[in-house]
């Protein structure tokens, strides 16, 4: 019956309770939606990094990443690539040549990372073919084709089929240069990447750098899903423990921290919202208690002990808070669900987003665990908000409370 009284008490003053519930609903739905928005943005960034830049796992010569020396290649690259392709769960493997070099057009020059790939193998690892906005993926130019980012194209002032020259230090430390023709221009959400990374065929760059055919500085591996990364990584380590075999979180620790930091920010954000709501709820419940002193006195007079009075006020506060909290969570979740498939267009700030590597078209991402956590946090807010008003209600003795008009 205490449940029934508490629930009905909420609706004694419909306007007041509705205003509080709306405030909680708006606060919580904004919190839930913001969380889904930022989680979506972050997940997109991670997916984009995996599908365009890092893949799930990369293998290097132990000294390559620190020195970027041309000679620090994986001598068993071709053989290892074939073996890895046979591991269950592996979606694609690409044996790449990676050289820091200079690219120049008739207008200007720029420092870039040359990635020499087997175009077919690379398709299984990155989305580069889908990122082409002009031209075709290594198709249409027979000799020395090169794929460049749109940002680099703008910087070099080159177009499709324009000639560019790649200059590098070969294996014997001699300066070598080769003419390449732009076969395609790509665009990823990360404009910095687009400005600094070019793709060529591995045979073309191996010849220029005088590297052996089988050589590779980087073997990139994409697996079927993120859960398989550790398993596949361990299987590769078992094949050749002398190489540096790292997953995407180890290659780019900031991506791993991003998840943790974003979660922390989201909790802080929601706690701030709940903290603001807390005072509104305390104020409302104090008014409720002060309006009902006589009634509380009557309840205590006829035999309701202080513990039960306390529980009744707490229950009433929790129910009031939970109604807003649950409606807010559902509204926020519904909105987030809709935007999981309908992008939120942030094109107005596209330049900034792109420079930071984020896609300006954001799809929200719902985290059910977070929704449950939010509801539990709302529940605790209700309990905390109830303590002071309930304590106030207990300060009166029945005779004193019954005298109050």
């Amino acid at each position, binding site marked *: 019956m205490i449940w*029934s009284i508490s629930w009905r008490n909420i609706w*004694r003053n419909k306007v007041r309770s509705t205003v509080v519930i709306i405030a909680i609903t708006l606060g919580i739905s904004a919190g839930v939606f913001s969380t889904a928005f930022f989680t979506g943005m972050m997940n997109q960034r991670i997916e984009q990094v995996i599908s365009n830049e890092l893949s799930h796992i990369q293998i290097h010569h132990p000294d390559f990443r620190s020195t970027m020396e041309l000679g620090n290649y994986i001598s068993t690259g071709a053989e290892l690539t074939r073996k890895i392709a046979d591991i269950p769960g592996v979606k694609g493997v690409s044996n790449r040549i990676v050289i820091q070099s200079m690219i120049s057009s008739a207008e200007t020059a720029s420092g870039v990372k040359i990635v020499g790939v087997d175009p077919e193998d690379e398709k299984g690892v990155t989305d580069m073919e889908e990122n082409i906005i002009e031209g075709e993926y290594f198709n249409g130019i027979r000799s020395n084709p090169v794929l460049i980012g749109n940002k680099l194209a703008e910087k070099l002032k080159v177009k499709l089929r324009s000639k560019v020259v790649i200059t590098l230090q070969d294996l014997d430390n001699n300066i070598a240069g080769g003419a390449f023709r732009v076969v395609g221009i790509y665009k990823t959400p990360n404009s910095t990447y687009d400005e600094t990374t070019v793709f060529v065929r591995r045979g073309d760059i191996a010849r220029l750098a005088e590297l052996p055919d089988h050589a590779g500085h980087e073997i990139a591996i994409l697996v079927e899903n993120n859960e398989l990364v550790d398993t596949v990584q361990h299987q590769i380590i078992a094949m050749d423990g002398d190489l540096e075999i790292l997953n995407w979180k180890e290659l780019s620790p900031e991506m791993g921290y991003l998840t943790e930091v974003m979660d922390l920010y989201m909790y802080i954000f929601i706690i701030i919202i709940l903290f603001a709501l807390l005072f509104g709820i305390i104020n409302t419940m104090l008014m409720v208690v002060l309006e009902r002193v006589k009634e509380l006195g009557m309840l205590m007079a*006829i035999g309701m002990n202080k513990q*039960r009075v306390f529980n009744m006020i707490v229950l009433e506060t929790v129910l009031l808070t939970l109604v807003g909290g649950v409606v807010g969570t559902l509204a926020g979740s519904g909105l987030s669900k809709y935007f999981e498939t309908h992008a939120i267009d942030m094109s107005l700030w596209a330049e900034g987003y792109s420079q930071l590597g984020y896609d300006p078209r954001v799809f929200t991402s719902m985290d059910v665990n977070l929704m449950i956590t939010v509801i539990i946090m709302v529940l605790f807010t209700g309990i905390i908000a109830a303590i002071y008003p309930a304590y106030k209600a207990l300060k009166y*003795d029945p*005779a004193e409370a019954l005298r109050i008009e």
Partner: protein
Amino acid sequence: MSIIEIKNLTKIYDGAGLEVKAVNGIYLNFEKGEFAAIVGPSGSGKTTFLNLLGGLDSPTSGEVIVDGVDIWKLRSRKLINFRMNHIGFVFQSYNLIPVLTAKENVEFIMHLQGRSKRERDARTKELLQAVGLADRINSRPNKLSGGQQQRVAVARALASKPKFILADEPTANLDSKSTENLLDIMEKLNREENITFIFSTHDARVVKKAHRVITMEDGKIVSDVTQ
């Protein structure tokens, strides 16, 4: 043996250095089945006396012994349970729980006592019939007249099967017809079920119906007449 024994009951209010003896050394006994009115001018200490008797307000000194138990020697929780199980209250302004129906108001105290649903239903029905409100069991207080609300309050006071009922000016907010009706019901319950009623009042009609009239002035009993 008396159902209630009151010995040297005193209540002193101490406000701004001024002592007010609201109840001043009262000795009084009540027997089972009494229908007693406490009368006196405003400020004579009637309500304070009833509060002391009902365990709602603590005395400065003295004893209130109900069926051999000195209620003011009970610890707080035990006193609340004692009130719940042995004393019924009827208040001047009805004080029903506004969000509950007549039926729920009556059965509320039985809920607190932990009675079974079957027992609650049967007793609620019996009591609301006794106060003539069997047809209004699902009405909330705001849909009932003042007289009807006070009859629900009487049924609620009886629900816990108390040893006696204390009613503080129960007819003060009622018109003459409702007063007459309520008094008839209370008198009938007293006569037929031997329930003890002790009420404070200003109302001459109530005084006329009472079997015993105790008059208070300045916190003291100035007369105690059985009629």
